[in-house]
């Protein structure tokens, strides 16, 4: 469904990995006149003809940019999932930033389209979950903390905007965990622990989306019109134990209470801020999302399955096979 194509695109969170890659992809599209990237810090990669504006989206400054540049498409990639900053600051960025941004979109007459990066974490993780979540499913046990809760709130504000500005094309994308050579997330750091602790007696089903596929989905949603909410993940499922074995990582099952304590200590003393309660729940119960709606809508399938995305990540990290597997040989 090619639309009256996006001319002026604003990308938030452009200094972070996903934002930078999406901005780079969009600026290569000759159909787009201007790509404006905003973030609170300067990007450390060249962004081509993307115009970088240092602005905090929590301030009304963002409204000025949207209005003065006549932005017609807003790609909101600012959701902070890795707690590199403190939790309070991340929440502020996620929730207050989104509120300001949406307020600006609502005000500006030029805005036509909004693309929001959300997370599959909005479904929560619990033993009472259905095996596969569709977009229409309500979470059984909604996330109570962390970026997952932020994402729920962000989606709530986006729904509010959709009600008030029914002329906008609004797409919300719920991404599974990103993996790939360039991704640095709580998950990738977890995989890098010298001995990876897992929850004793649980083997969660995990899904990954490769960074290339994530960028491609965002590009398509931005240049074409696909209103609605879509799950994004690579095909198939990997169990945590399976993933760790494939990467040859040594792992140690630990009872869940002591793992929370470990996680807490990691947060406090070792700077492992990503070892959050919601990551722990995910590593206990896992989560699988249904991506059929997106594939129907885009008539496109992710190039990388969850398995392939993980393999690409593991290869890029130089993970090999475990000593036992080597001992048993490859033939």
């Amino acid at each position, binding site marked *: 469904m090619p639309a009256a194509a996006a001319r002026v695109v604003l990308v938030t969170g452009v200094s972070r990995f996903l934002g930078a890659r999406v901005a780079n992809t969009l600026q290569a599209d000759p159909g787009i006149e201007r790509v404006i990237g905003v973030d609170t810090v300067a990007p450390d990669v060249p962004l081509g003809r993307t115009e970088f504006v240092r602005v905090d989206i929590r301030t009304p400054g963002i409204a000025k940019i949207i209005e003065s540049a006549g932005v017609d498409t807003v790609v909101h990639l600012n959701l902070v999932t890795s707690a590199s900053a403190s939790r309070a600051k991340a929440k502020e960025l996620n929730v207050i930033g989104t509120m300001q941004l949406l307020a600006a979109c609502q005000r500006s007459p030029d805005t036509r389209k909004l693309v929001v990066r959300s997370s599959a974490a909005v479904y929560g993780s619990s033993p009472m979950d259905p095996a*596969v979540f569709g977009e229409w499913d309500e979470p059984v046990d909604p996330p109570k903390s962390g970026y997952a809760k932020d994402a729920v709130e962000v989606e709530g504000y986006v729904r509010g905007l959709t009600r008030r500005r029914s002329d906008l094309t609004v797409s919300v994308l719920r991404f599974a965990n990103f993996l790939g050579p360039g991704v640095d997330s709580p998950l990738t750091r977890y995989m890098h622990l010298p001995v990876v602790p897992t929850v*004793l*007696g649980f*083997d969660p*089903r995990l899904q990954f989306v490769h960074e290339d596929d994530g960028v491609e989905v965002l590009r398509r949603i931005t240049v074409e019109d696909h209103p609605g909410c879509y799950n994004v993940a690579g095909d198939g499922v990997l*169990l945590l134990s399976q993933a760790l074995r494939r990467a040859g990582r040594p792992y140690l099952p630990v009872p869940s209470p002591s793992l929370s304590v470990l996680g807490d200590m990691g947060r406090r003393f070792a700077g492992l801020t990503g070892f959050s309660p919601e990551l722990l729940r995910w590593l206990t119960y*896992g989560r699988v999302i249904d991506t059929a709606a997106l594939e129907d809508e885009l008539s496109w399938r992710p190039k990388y399955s969850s398995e392939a995305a993980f393999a690409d990540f593991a290869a890029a990290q130089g993970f090999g*096979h475990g000593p036992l*597997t080597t001992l048993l040989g490859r033939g």
Partner: protein
Amino acid sequence: MNNARHRHDPHDSDDAETGARVIRLASVRDNGGAEDDTSREAPERGSLERGIASGLAFLRRRLSGDYAVDEFGFDPEFNSAVLLPLARALYEHWFRVDLEGVENIPDGGALLVANHSGTIPIDALMLSVALHDHADRRVRLLGADLIYQVPLLGHLSRKAGHTLACQADAARLLAKGELVGVFPEGFKGVGKPFSERYKLQRFGRGGFVGTALRAGVPIVPCAIVGAEEIYPKIADLRPLARLLGLPYFPITPTFPLLGPAGLVPLPSKWLIRFGEPMTLDEYDADTADDPMTLFDITDHVRENVQHMLDDALLRRGPAFL
């Protein structure tokens, strides 16, 4: 023999890189007599070597994570190679299960409805073995959420192909043409006192009928006789059960009196019987929203299972011989 050799041929020429997803340990199990031309001079050594080789290949696949699971977490290789053989030992030698009506299992999607009993749901395991070995179907059971909260049990249950009892999962499995099994009595059935053996409890809220109607699949009634005697529950320690968050804490003649030895199930004689599929063609999918019809069908299914149960109980004869 010829057949067996055919089955083993791809196995002989395999290396780990090619068909990693093919389940091979089952063939290791009945590898005893199988030999091919090259090993004819020393058949015993050949089969032993092959056994070790495929065992090592299996180990290597498991250790390198080189296997596939479906979206429900079903791990067919692990199920056939590890979980089922354990259950099979009980099935063949301890409970000496007899099967009737295996031909009633349809080819495509179907909803199997069985009675539930035995204090510990071993009947679910035996049903999986029966259908795997004798009907060549992998039954996907729907289990209580309690199972998925308990460490180990939850993920083993998923690896064996089972999932949480909820409408969405059942519909998804049936749409894939799977054989889905339910125990509508739930905990009321599996934890009922010994004095009420072989009396069906209430069939939940009849959600399974709605599921079958929406999916347009037949209901296959199933009676399992023998599970009632494995742990005769003569009393229930309710306060302890509440403390542990369990639906009941059973007292049997041997548990907790004999300690861990009391966990050994009594060797009752089992009979599993599958009834004729009940097609629901006369109803359309909209009926799923008509509670009255659902209750009627639920009752009908329940009567049918009770009937089969009474009949099978008579045919089995004495409980432990």
